[in-house]
């Protein structure tokens, strides 16, 4: 059973504690990440989510209650997305020089990312509902959720998958790309933005402001492009199959 507060002020106090829980766990995670010299498996987002989930389970608090108390963070994603225009503008001249290859890769990537996910999940025997919910996985959360609504996916699953796709991209992306001989920070940034949205972009800003600007660009464009094409693509597929 979830804890039932007996009056409004208790309810408010409880909400504030749940909000404080997120902030405290996040800064503790960030501190540990820096102490461990950015050891990538300790990514603050991954460790915070795990720890908070474990705490909620152990003291028997509903996720819905936790989510309601923390809705301010969901709200702040809006202005944070708008804020990406600033690094984008600052690096615009260096981006424009590469416009053609970037746009071609964008087209390829925004189809490749959902295809890879759906194919693998299908091979592991996922339901149609799960498969559809995986399709917006490389798109930034607010866009992914509105796409999920549009195509009839399960929003809660989409949101979680999106976040952890970002975490995997942020943890393994730069290393994997260097291994494949993609060393240029502009290319690494753009690839992170296509595949790992805001979480990948946060990682890209750790590498350098230029890397972050390329990632912001890819994040925005992938979001817009996927929002425009994915619902139509799925509609066509459902008619064929």
């Amino acid at each position, binding site marked *: 059973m979830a804890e039932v507060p007996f009056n409004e002020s208790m309810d408010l106090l409880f909400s504030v504690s749940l909000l404080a829980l997120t902030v405290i766990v996040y800064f503790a995670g960030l501190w540990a990440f820096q102490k461990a010299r950015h050891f990538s498996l300790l990514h603050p987002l991954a460790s915070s989510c795990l720890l908070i989930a474990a705490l909620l389970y152990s003291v028997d608090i509903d996720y819905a209650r936790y989510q309601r108390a923390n809705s301010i963070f969901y709200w702040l994603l809006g202005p944070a997305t708008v804020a990406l225009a600033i690094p984008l503008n600052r690096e615009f001249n260096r981006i424009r020089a590469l416009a053609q290859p970037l746009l071609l890769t964008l087209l390829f990537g925004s189809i490749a990312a959902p295809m890879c996910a759906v194919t693998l999940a299908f091979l592991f025997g996922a339901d149609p509902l799960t498969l559809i919910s995986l399709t917006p996985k490389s798109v930034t959360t607010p866009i992914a959720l509105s796409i999920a609504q549009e195509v009839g996916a399960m929003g809660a699953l989409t949101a979680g998958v999106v976040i952890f796709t970002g975490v995997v991209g942020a943890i393994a992306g730069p290393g994997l790309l260097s291994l494949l001989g993609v060393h240029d920070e502009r*290319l690494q940034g753009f690839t992170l933005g296509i595949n790992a949205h805001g979480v990948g972009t946060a990682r890209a800003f750790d590498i350098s402001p230029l890397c972050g600007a390329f990632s912001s660009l890819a994040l925005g464009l992938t979001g817009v492009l996927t929002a425009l094409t994915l619902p139509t693509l799925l509609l066509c597929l459902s008619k064929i199959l």
Partner: protein
Amino acid sequence: MNKVTDSLKGLAVLVLFQLLGECLAYVLPIAVPGPVLGMVLLFFTLRQLSPPDWLVNTAGKLIGMLSLFFIPAGVGIFFLPEAIQQQWPAILAAIIGGTLLSIALTGLTLKALTRTSLNDG
């Protein structure tokens, strides 16, 4: 105190552009979310006027805290309905395998396409 007012001013401008984006999203016949259109509008505005320091600072702070804003949604993956939880091998394969595969594919594509044009610094 000045820092606080600067942050609030910056946040107000960003929210204003988000609001303009939401209005545009409501009018346009496509399903693009308001914040993304707000980003596009702010971008075109900045092509004309250079941004004041307080806006640049607020934006930098918000971008630096992006990971924090994702936490509540990320926690949700541990609280999915039973029927979905049974498919965790497939979901895990998509999240880990699918992401690594598509990063490798897009990274290599981009590298191949930019081989000739990367020498501009």
